[in-house]
């Protein structure tokens, strides 16, 4: 039994081939439901499948993914630190951000300091800016019934919000959008080495930009996120210059494509369920759950970063030992029939929409409140503006976003 797209053929009877397709052959760019069929095959083999080729355990069930993400001493950074030792500039930058630090205590120290700047109030302050930027984009689309939802709308919002938060002037937003695009492949579990040069170029561009911006912010004592991160301190401890540059780069890449892709995936799903779109339009109390349910059903991040275990992971009838690497495929967890009733059905009234799209545990997404604010603000305005949304062509896959199922173009037709 084979399943195919233009570039990829997957042998559904060979789990090793399935894992290879997911990690290295763009299976996430295949027809809409195909990746979930692949996860279903792996899930049917047991709580974890050990890939010999990649030397890791692939998790596609909810309980296994949850246990792996909450495992308190797992380490995401072994490969990054190895690459940094070989002289990769991107890896050297990544190696000092909280996602990739070896010691969990160091990760929590950085999170504590960043949390002093990235407060619920800082996030709430971005609501007005988001409304303003979305309003401008909708005004530009006035009078048009057809447009590209990703390229002319969603892709402009998160990068503008992050730049505003960091105090990057508006005229520099386009270059930040370009750098984000160039860096994106660096998040893949298996790096495509043909992308190394573009990643390094973007990371160097951002490094030089921030190295110039930070001293100016320090001098002026600005009240934006970057200014607050510069001043954040706890018991005499502060973020170093290197940490500030790495964290700013990290916040940009973690907060841009993820949110614009989530927004696009959600509208794709809503458009495919016009009766539910109409219900949300009429009753905005449903908006929050309609976003969370869409994140569960079709959230853009398909797998989390691989974890190297320093404590055994106990799964149903299986113990994965210290020193092993596990890959939590959260999109598989979200369609696990042992956890969700009728998991393939999109239902905005579903009672349990708790998902792993922002991860959980020590590396739970720092920007989840910001992402949720941007999504509810922008999508609320989409509901205000458009009586209906129809996707007019199969969305064009965006194959260069690592663990994300990306869309690079999505033509829509709207009524007002």
């Amino acid at each position, binding site marked *: 039994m084979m399943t195919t797209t233009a570039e990829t053929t997957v042998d559904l009877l060979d789990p090793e081939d399935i894992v290879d397709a997911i990690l290295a052959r763009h299976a996430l760019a295949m027809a809409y439901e195909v990746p979930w069929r692949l996860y279903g095959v792996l899930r049917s083999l047991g709580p974890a499948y050990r890939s010999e080729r990649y030397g890791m355990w692939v998790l596609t069930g909810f309980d296994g993914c949850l246990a792996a993400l*909450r495992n*308190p001493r797992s380490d995401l950074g072994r490969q990054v630190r190895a690459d940094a030792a070989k002289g990769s500039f991107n890896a050297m930058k990544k190696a000092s951000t909280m996602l990739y630090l070896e010691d969990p205590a160091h990760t*929590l120290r950085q*999170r*504590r300091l960043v*949390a*002093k700047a*990235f*407060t*619920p109030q800082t*996030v709430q302050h971005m609501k007005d800016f988001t409304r303003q930027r979305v309003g401008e984009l909708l005004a530009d689309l006035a009078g048009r019934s057809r447009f590209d939802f990703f390229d002319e709308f969603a892709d402009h919002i998160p990068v503008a919000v992050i730049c505003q938060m960091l105090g990057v002037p508006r005229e520099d937003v386009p270059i930040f959008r370009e750098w984000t695009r160039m860096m994106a492949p660096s998040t893949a579990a298996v790096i495509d080495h043909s992308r190394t040069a573009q990643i390094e170029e973007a990371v160097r561009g951002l490094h030089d930009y921030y190295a110039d911006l930070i001293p100016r912010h320090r001098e002026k004592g600005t009240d934006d996120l970057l200014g607050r991160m510069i001043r954040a301190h*706890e018991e005499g401890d502060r973020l170093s210059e290197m940490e500030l540059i790495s964290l700013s780069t990290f916040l940009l890449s973690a907060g841009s494509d993820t949110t614009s892709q989530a927004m696009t995936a959600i509208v794709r799903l809503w458009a495919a369920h016009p009766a539910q779109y109409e219900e949300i339009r009429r009753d905005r109390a449903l908006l929050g759950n309609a976003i969370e349910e869409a994140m569960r059903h079709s959230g853009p991040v398909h797998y989390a970063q691989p974890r190297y275990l320093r404590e055994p992971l106990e799964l149903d009838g299986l113990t994965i030992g210290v020193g092993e690497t596990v890959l939590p495929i959260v999109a598989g967890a979200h369609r696990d029939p042992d956890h969700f009733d009728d998991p393939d059905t999109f239902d905005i009234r579903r*009672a349990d929409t*708790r998902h792993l799209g*922002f991860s*959980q*545990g*020590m*590396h*739970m997404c*720092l920007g*989840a*409140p910001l992402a*949720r*604010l941007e999504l509810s603000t922008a999508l609320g305005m989409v509901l205000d503006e458009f009586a209906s949304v129809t996707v007019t062509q199969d969305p064009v896959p965006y194959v260069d976003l690592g663990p994300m199922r990306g869309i690079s173009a999505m033509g829509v037709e709207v009524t007002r």
Partner: protein
Amino acid sequence: MIEVDEALCIGSGNCEFLAPRTFRVEDDGISHVLPDGAADADAAVSRAIDECPAMAIRRGEP
């Protein structure tokens, strides 16, 4: 009965965002449970417990 372990809390504020009538990060950088803790939907409080990056929130005995 909701409890925040102050020794674990890193003040991320995710709980306050999800359940603003139950949690507030005060000037000490730690999340505190507000007296009127029943004001948020149970699902929101559950999500706040699940999504605490420090795994510092739990439901105690009533």
